[in-house]
């Protein structure tokens, strides 16, 4: 609730900070000042690029009016300046659009906006209560912060009112089957493309019938045509079939999503012309209206796509991604490694290792540093996102890491990793999340009984820091002070962390192993200290279950995502989120940081993966193609690729730079809960509910795609069906679903899961 109330305030504060500040405020992260962390407003980004220009302007004007009404004059100034809108422009637009004249005050503002969303509804004389909230509803995808305002009570009636008029209910079936007959009769090359229309049309026509209280017709319509829909829409059809009354439409999130977002289709120009001609000849206004209002048809020039091409990309709740959305530049390169002086005695054997070499030569560091920047044009600026400074302990850890990585085993199809399986016994189906530390020394498990347990998987036991009183007595100058502050009496192999009041769905260790994050059904994310084994902070913001959380690879930041359909970026020393990534149409089920910490990937129940820019909270990639909720994500170590696994048992591989699917790994028979690339990115390991760990040849999968292809053509790809060739190994566990996978620094694969005695 707090977040909702804070909405406007935050909006205000965020808007005042200019983006320029950001580049300066890199250092001093521990200084706790807001300016030092991320602070540029997501609002400065223009609303999603796909919308026509006129709409953009209208949107901006609406926002301005909203701000004005709420007496946020400073923000108004900034927005106006940035958008380049004159005062008069705003005024005239408002009068143009409202239609009802200026007289009705608040309602007039809203109406002006609605006029474009529900053009046809304007004709119907139905009066509706218009609250100021409704503006927000329409823009929720564009304006994350405003979305929060409206989240709890979206004004459904407005959203749905577009359904209010339209033709004769019994004729719906005729319309639909008329279109069906037409599409079935067209040439093969067009048929596949036009068939995409079936599902969105079906849903909208059905909802229209339901909305207008034609219950029996709706049911008949559903029964007649639901069987024609693609199998991957099954889940949504299940929800649809339960809806038979107008009242049900209110509060059903899935359908609201369907309404508020336009279903996106990619159709070639030829096919589109064919369709348009047909509908105009037949005067089939009914369907034409729906296409105009509720669908977004992304027309491209070139050859129509084939059925398999379409199938590989479709499946998400709101159709495919608009092509414009994925055009933004993504800096997927890795950040330059900080130079660390490596102890001389290791120099000899490490010099042989090529990767480790440039990082460690102290004398050459300046030249090498600039060189590596040049080498990777895709890397973001080092200070694009302010990152915490390395502490001495971090440097020690880096050195450890480099030492370990020299001993790393080179993996490949002929050199498969060994897998060590950590089985949780007596967990009684209560294990919900697992994480390993990067150095594989600790293991954390989240359980359905609200506890988090931490195990040491090395002989070193877990110890708490002594109490404050005892600490005072310790001589602080002594060499082994770090050892002395630990309380030997508390040494044990595992510790239990109590604090949550619901199942723990996500756990994540900080890279420095001092903290542990856990997210739970109770709506909080908790930060635990692994020195004292107590809870430090409870981050409240998600009011609903938080499904996943993940620490940035550089620490300090973390991301969480939950049932409230947003992902939030937090800094450990701020109790409020720094960024809110809004846009998913259903629960955010998993969250992962990009290795360079500049981006966050989220997977959702709406069957899309989105990539967000941490800098400005923009959605820079929408990846569609999954046919089920996504439950696992993994970035390749070089930051170029992303793998995602879903309930349908398929792993999809994505090229982040181009925003395209480049591979599909089929084989699992159940939800994939764990994905991990080996340290060199040569092997992708996937773990699933079907009690198997599978190893895939990711190198081969990435190599086989000719990247030139995508830029030249319109972005459709032929996916080779080579899952079988890419599968390097499959290992069954004994009725133990695989919950987590982790490659140690030496490329030993660790797997974890709870033994299931049934």
């Amino acid at each position, binding site marked *: 609730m707090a977040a909702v109330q804070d909405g406007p305030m935050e909006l205000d504060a965020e808007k005042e900070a200019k983006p320029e500040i950001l580049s300066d405020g890199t250092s001093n992260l521990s200084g706790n000042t807001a300016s030092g962390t991320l602070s540029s407003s997501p609002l400065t980004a223009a609303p999603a690029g796909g919308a026509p220009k006129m709409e953009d302007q209208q949107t901006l004007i609406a926002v301005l009016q909203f701000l004005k009404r709420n007496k946020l004059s400073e923000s108004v100034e900034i927005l106006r300046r940035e958008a380049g809108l004159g005062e008069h422009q705003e005024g005239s637009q408002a009068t143009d659009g409202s239609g009802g004249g200026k007289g009705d005050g608040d309602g007039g503002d809203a109406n002006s906006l609605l006029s474009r969303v529900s053009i046809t509804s304007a004709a119907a004389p139905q009066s509706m209560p218009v609250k100021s909230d409704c503006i927000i509803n329409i823009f929720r995808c564009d304006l994350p912060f405003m979305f929060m305002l409206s989240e709890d009570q979206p004004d459904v009636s407005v959203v749905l009112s577009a359904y209010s008029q339209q033709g004769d209910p019994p004729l719906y079936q005729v319309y639909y089957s008329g279109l069906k007959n037409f599409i079935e009769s067209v040439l093969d090359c067009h048929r596949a493309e036009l068939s995409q229309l079936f599902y969105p049309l079906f849903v909208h026509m059905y909802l229209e019938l339901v909305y207008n209280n034609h219950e029996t017709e709706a049911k008949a319509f559903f029964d007649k045509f639901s069987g024609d829909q693609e199998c991957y829409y099954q889940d949504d059809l299940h929800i649809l079939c339960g809806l038979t009354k107008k009242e049900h439409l209110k509060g059903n999130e899935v359908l609201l999503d369907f309404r508020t977002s336009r279903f996106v289709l990619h159709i070639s120009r030829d096919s589109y012309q064919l369709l348009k001609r047909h509908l105009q000849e037949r005067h089939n206004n009914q369907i034409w209206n729906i296409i105009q209002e509720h669908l977004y048809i992304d027309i491209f020039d070139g050859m129509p796509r084939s059925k398999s091409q379409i199938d590989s990309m479709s499946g998400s709740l709101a159709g495919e991604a608009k092509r414009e959305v994925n055009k933004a530049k993504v800096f997927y390169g890795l950040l330059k490694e900080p130079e660390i002086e490596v102890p001389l005695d290791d120099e000899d054997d490490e010099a042989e290792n090529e990767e480790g070499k440039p990082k460690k030569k102290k004398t050459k560091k300046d030249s090498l540093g600039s060189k590596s920047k040049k080498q990777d044009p895709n890397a973001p600026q080092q200070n694009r996102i302010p990152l915490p400074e390395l502490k001495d302990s971090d440097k020690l850890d880096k050195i450890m890491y480099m030492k370990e990585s020299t001993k790393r085993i080179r993996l490949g199809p002929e050199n498969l990793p060994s897998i060590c399986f950590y089985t*949780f016994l007596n967990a009684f189906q209560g294990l919900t999340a697992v994480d390993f530390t990067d150095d594989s020394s600790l293991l954390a498990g989240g359980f359905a009984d609200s506890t988090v347990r931490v195990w040491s998987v090395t002989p070193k036991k877990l110890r708490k820091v002594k109490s404050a009183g005892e600490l005072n007595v310790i001589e602080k100058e002594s060499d082994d002070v770090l050892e002395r502050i630990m309380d030997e009496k508390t040494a044990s192999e595992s510790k239990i962390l109590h604090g949550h009041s619901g199942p723990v769905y996500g756990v994540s260790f900080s890279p420095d192993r001092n903290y542990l994050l856990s997210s739970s059904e109770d709506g909080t994310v908790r930060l635990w200290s692994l020195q004292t084994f107590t809870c430090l902070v409870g981050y409240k913001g998600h009011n609903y*279950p938080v499904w996943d959380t993940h620490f940035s690879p550089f620490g300090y930041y973390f991301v969480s995502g939950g049932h409230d359909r947003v992902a939030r970026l937090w800094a450990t020393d701020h109790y409020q989120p720094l960024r809110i990534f809004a846009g998913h149409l259903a629960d955010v089920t998993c969250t992962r940081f990009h290795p360079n910490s500049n981006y966050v990937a989220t997977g959702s129940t709406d069957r899309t993966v989105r990539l967000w820019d941490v800098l400005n909270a923009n959605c820079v990639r929408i990846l569609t193609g999954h046919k089920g909720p996504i439950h696992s994500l993994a970035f390749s170590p070089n930051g170029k690729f992303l793998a995602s696994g879903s309930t349908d048992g398929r792993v999809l591989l994505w090229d982040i730079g181009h925003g395209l699917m480049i591979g599909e790994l089929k084989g699992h028979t159940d939800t994939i809960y764990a994905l991990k690339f080996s340290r060199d990115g040569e092997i992708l390991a996937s773990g699933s509910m079907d009690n198997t760990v599978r190893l895939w040849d990711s190198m081969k999968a990435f190599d086989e795609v000719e990247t030139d292809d995508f830029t030249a053509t319109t972005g459709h790809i032929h996916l080779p069906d080579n899952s079988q060739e890419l599968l390097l190994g499959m290992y069954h566990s004994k009725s133990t679903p695989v919950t987590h996978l982790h490659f140690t620094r030496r490329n030993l694969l660790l797997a974890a899961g709870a033994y299931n005695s049934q």
Partner: protein
Amino acid sequence: MAEERRQKLCSVILPTESMKAMAESVGVGSLQEESCLALSEEVSYRIKEIAQDALKFMHHGKRRKLTTGDIDHALKLKNVEPLYGFQSQEFIPFRFASGGGRELHFYEEKEVDLSDIINTPLPRVPLDVSLKAHWLSIDGVQPAIPENPPPVPKEQQKTDSTEPLKAVKPGQEEEGSIQTKGQGANSAEVKGKEKMRMKPRSTHELSVEQQLYYKEITEACVGSCEAKRAEALQSIATDPGLYQMLPRFSTFISEGVRVNVVQNNLALLIYLMRMVKALMDNPTLYLEKYLHELIPAVVTCIVSKQLCLRPDVDNHWALRDFAARLMAQSCKTFSTTTNNIQSRITKTFTKSLLDDKTQWTTRYGCIAGLAELGHDVIKTLIIPRLSVEGARIKAVMDGPVVSNIDKIGADHVQSLLLKHCACVVAKTRPLPDMVDQYKADYGYLGTMLCSHVVKARAQAAFQAQTVNRTTLTITQPRPTLSMSQSGLSASSGSRTPSIIKVPSSLTLMSTRPGTPTQPSPPATKYIVMATSAGAASTQQVITLSSSQSGSSVTSTVPSTPTSLQPLVKLESGTTGAVSGPRPLQKYIVVSLPSSSSSLENKGSGVIPSSTSPISMESAVKLERSESPAANTQSPH
């Protein structure tokens, strides 16, 4: 197909009757049909909505089963107060009732006597979550250790054996493809797979380790050291990686039987049958392919004319019994409509049974083999033959002394017939049991049969008396065969599968090999159910100290007369007399996985054999049902 299912889903709406029932339960007497319909539609929709939300929690909880907790959380999402009190982890015990034209599902809430709860001993403290590491794969090869599943699942063994060509075809299975692209790969896994798949199973080679193992195991199985043999048999029965050696074992057994029958080496035949038993007990083996070798060997051991050198002294009858049980077991497991094992076996037995020239030994085997196949077989094939067999026995018993061997044989056949037929007759034949009637129906054997039937009936009545609420089904008794070649004690009275009824509060954790958490089972476990003839039953906690008799501790906890309270686990390796039972008490003793030495218990005077309905010999595996202890272990 999908369409049909969806349409059905669409029309699922709660019946209006339930609405009425619910309305009545909250005091609304008359609800109009229209309101009911409106309500039921609304309720159905909301329930679907909640179920769909609950599914999310199930997925995130990484489970396959929806729990009541998921529903609670889904309700919480909707700002609805969760339903309390449904914490059952496995199933919600809804009951069904109909009456007055109505059908209802309801949740049975029993009245619980607090004193019962107070008096029952506390359940075991649930085990804490623990972590165990093992190697799932070493350099790409999965080691065959108990923590890993068997290397080749049964289904695959089956497809390999039935369609040997299919396994080689690339792309058919995930693994199948590995070999196609793995040429030149030096990984051991790829190599192993290639060898396994490219060559037909019949000629493929065993690794050196496997050859060593095979040698050790076969030597131990037929060797002289009983301890070693037990270990070897245990290995055969549990080891998951034996399928490659299966053809060798099967040949070993069939050849062994052939040779030893000729040489009349009873001991070796028994050893070989025990090997068959162990193979059949191994859940990871696909035996179907080797039945053509195993079944003839087993049948030989049942019906062979002579199995030992001294038929008058040696107890070859026990071997026949044991083999017959094996045969029945394999009929049960492997008989399908295509191979028709059971009917073919039945035909074979019947044919030689009908033959007049059949020897007594073979006759005994045929009858034993048939009898083990179940009551129906006894009823249709043996009971009609009773008078004929009776006459034959009579001829031997009363007639001129031909040979001692014949007499012993006839005697055995007689007791066998009586044993098996008595319980069947007791079940099928209406009361009263008149000796004359029996004589008329069954001839010579009628008199004895009658007394056996009376005994069987009494026993059944006794069992019924001890019946309580819950049924504990006891699976097929595990036949054991000890090497006692002297005397008739090996084959004992009633070893029919029986159903024991025990109170539901019985806490019984069976130790299954699959659960790594459980400690390995102790040698013997006994459950002693005590009941007295008087009104008050007592609950005995008997701890048998393994060292001495007489030092055992017995504590008696009084409980309510109606419910027969449990029951104790006695864990002891050796035997000892239980001190101080009341004179009128009866005991049912069920022994859990038996060790061969446990049989002497019977003679220790604790259990008068007439009142023990279940023979000690039948080692019984108690399947663990949802026991209270298991419940408490689950997290809430």
